[in-house]
C-alpha cells in the first residue's frame, strides 16, 4: 500500500467512526456555542471594548475548541485497545500521522466554520471583503495547530494527566501561530488588504511547513512503544 | 538618575544564590550516590 493510500485509510476510518457516533462533533459544536456565552459574559455588553478584542477572542475560540478536538486524536485507539494495531502497522508510521492530521483538519474545518459563523452572527462582525483573507488565515493557523497537536496527542495519549499535559505542551509552541493569526485577523477585519498582512501569512506558512515536516519525520519515534 | 544599588544588589545576589543552591544540590546528590555505591561514581 502506498504512503498516501495508507494515510487516506487512517483518515477515512476516523471519519467513518465519527460519522457513526457523532459524539465528538456534537460535543464540539455545543462547546463552541457555550464559548460564545462565556465570552459574552466575561467581556460584558460594552460594544466598544468587544470590537477591540474580537480577533483575539475569536482565536481563543478556535484554540479552545482545537485543544479539545485534537487532544482526543488517539483516544479511540487507546480506549478500545487498538494501540498495538498502530504499533504493528506495516511500513512508514508517518502515514498514520498524515492520516490523523487529515482527519483532524476535516474536523477542525467544521468546528472553525461553526465558531466563525456563531461569532459573525452574535457579535455582529462585518466580514465583507475580508472574507477570503480571513479564510486563508484561519486555514493556515488551524493547520499549524493541528500539525503539532496531532503529534503531541500521540505523545500524551498514554501519559497520566494527559488532559493537562497536552495543552501545557501545545500552547507555548503555538505562540507564533496565535500571534500571527490574531494580528492578521485584526488587520483584515479593519480593512487591511491581504498584501498588508503578507509577513504574518508567510510566518504562518513557514510554521505549517516546519510543523508538518517535523511531525512526519518524528512520528515513528513516538509510536515505537 | 538615582543609583538604585538595591536593585543591582538584588540581581547579583539572587543570581549567586540560585546558582549556588543548584550547584550545592548537585554536589549533595553526587555525594549521596557515592555513599551508596563506593567507587562507582568516578567517571
Amino acid at each position: 500500500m502506498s504512503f498516501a493510500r495508507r494515510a487516506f485509510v487512517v483518515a477515512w476510518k476516523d471519519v467513518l467512526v465519527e460519522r457513526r457516533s457523532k459524539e465528538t462533533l456534537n460535543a464540539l459544536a455545543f462547546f463552541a456555542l457555550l464559548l460564545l456565552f462565556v465570552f459574552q459574559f466575561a467581556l460584558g455588553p460594552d460594544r466598544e471594548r468587544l470590537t477591540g478584542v474580537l480577533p483575539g477572542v475569536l482565536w481563543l475560540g478556535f484554540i479552545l475548541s482545537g485543544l479539545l478536538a485534537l487532544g482526543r486524536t488517539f483516544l479511540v485507539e487507546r480506549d478500545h485497545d487498538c494501540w498495538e494495531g498502530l504499533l504493528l502497522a506495516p511500513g512508514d508510521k508517518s502515514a498514520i500521522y498524515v492520516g490523523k492530521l487529515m482527519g483532524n483538519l476535516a474536523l477542525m474545518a467544521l468546528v472553525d466554520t461553526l465558531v466563525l459563523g456563531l461569532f459573525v452572527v452574535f457579535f455582529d462582525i462585518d466580514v465583507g471583503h475580508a472574507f477570503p483573507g480571513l479564510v486563508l488565515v484561519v486555514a493556515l493557523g488551524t493547520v499549524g495547530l493541528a500539525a503539532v497537536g496531532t503529534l503531541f496527542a500521540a505523545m500524551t495519549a498514554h501519559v497520566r494527566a494527559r488532559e493537562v499535559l497536552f495543552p501545557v505542551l501545545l500552547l507555548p509552541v503555538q505562540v507564533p501561530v496565535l500571534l500571527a493569526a490574531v494580528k492578521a485577523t485584526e488587520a483584515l477585519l479593519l480593512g487591511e488588504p491581504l498584501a498588508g498582512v503578507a509577513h504574518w501569512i508567510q510566518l504562518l506558512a513557514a510554521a505549517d511547513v516546519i510543523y508538518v515536516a517535523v511531525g512526519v519525520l518524528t512520528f515513528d519515534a513516538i509510536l515505537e512503544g | 538618575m538615582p543609583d538604585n544599588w538595591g536593585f543591582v544588589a538584588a540581581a547579583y545576589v539572587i543570581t549567586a544564590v540560585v546558582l549556588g543552591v543548584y550547584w550545592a544540590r548537585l554536589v549533595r546528590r553526587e555525594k549521596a550516590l557515592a555513599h551508596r555505591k563506593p567507587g562507582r561514581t568516578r567517571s
Partner: protein
Amino acid sequence: MAVRALGILSAVGLLVGLVMAFGVAPRETTQGNVQRIMYVHPPLAWVSYLAFVVVAVASVAYLVRRRPAADRVAHASAEVGVVFTGLAIATGSIWGKPTWGTWWTWDARLTSVAILFVMYLGYLLLRGTVEDRERAARYCAVLGIVAALDMPLVHFSVYWWRTLHQPPSLMKPGGFTGSSAILWPLLVNVGAFTVLYAYLLAKRVRLLRAEAEEAFA
C-alpha cells in the same frame, strides 16, 4: 579531572567578571549604576539560548543513534537551562523596574525569554510524567526538536507583534555605546557564565549517569 577543571575555571571567570563589572566598568551616564545589571542579564539570556540549542542537538543525536549519553545531555541541559532562563527573567525584571517603572513588560526580548522558559518547563514536566525512561527519552527528544525549531518563529512573531505598530522600547537592553570599558566586562561575564554552564552541565550529566548505573545495578 576535566569537570573539576571546568569548575575552577568558571569560579575564576565569575570572579574576574564580577570585579570588572564593578571595578572596571564605569557608572553609565543615562541609567546610573542600575546598568551594571546588564553584566549578568545578557550573559544569562545567552546561556539560556545556548542550553536550548544543546537540548535540540542532543535530541536529534538521540533520535538518530539512540545513545543514552545524548539523552542525558539533553535532559541535563534542559535542567541547567531552566535555571539560567529563570534567572535571566528575574534579572531582566529587576533591571526593568527602576528603568521602565514596571516589573514586567511584554517587550519582545522579555516575552521571548519567558516563552523559552515555559518550553523548558514543559520539557521537564514531560520528563517527570512519562514513567518509562526510554519512552521519556524519545518523547522529550521530539519535544526538544519541535520547541527549538519553534524559537525562531517565536522570535519573529513576538518582535513583529511589539514593533510594527509601536516604536521600539526606548532603552534596548544590551545596547551599548561601544566603549570598551563596557564591552570587556560584558564579554568576560558572557564567557564566565558559559563556562559555568558547561561545568554545571558536566556535573549534571555525570549525576544522571551515576543514577542510571545505580538503577540497573
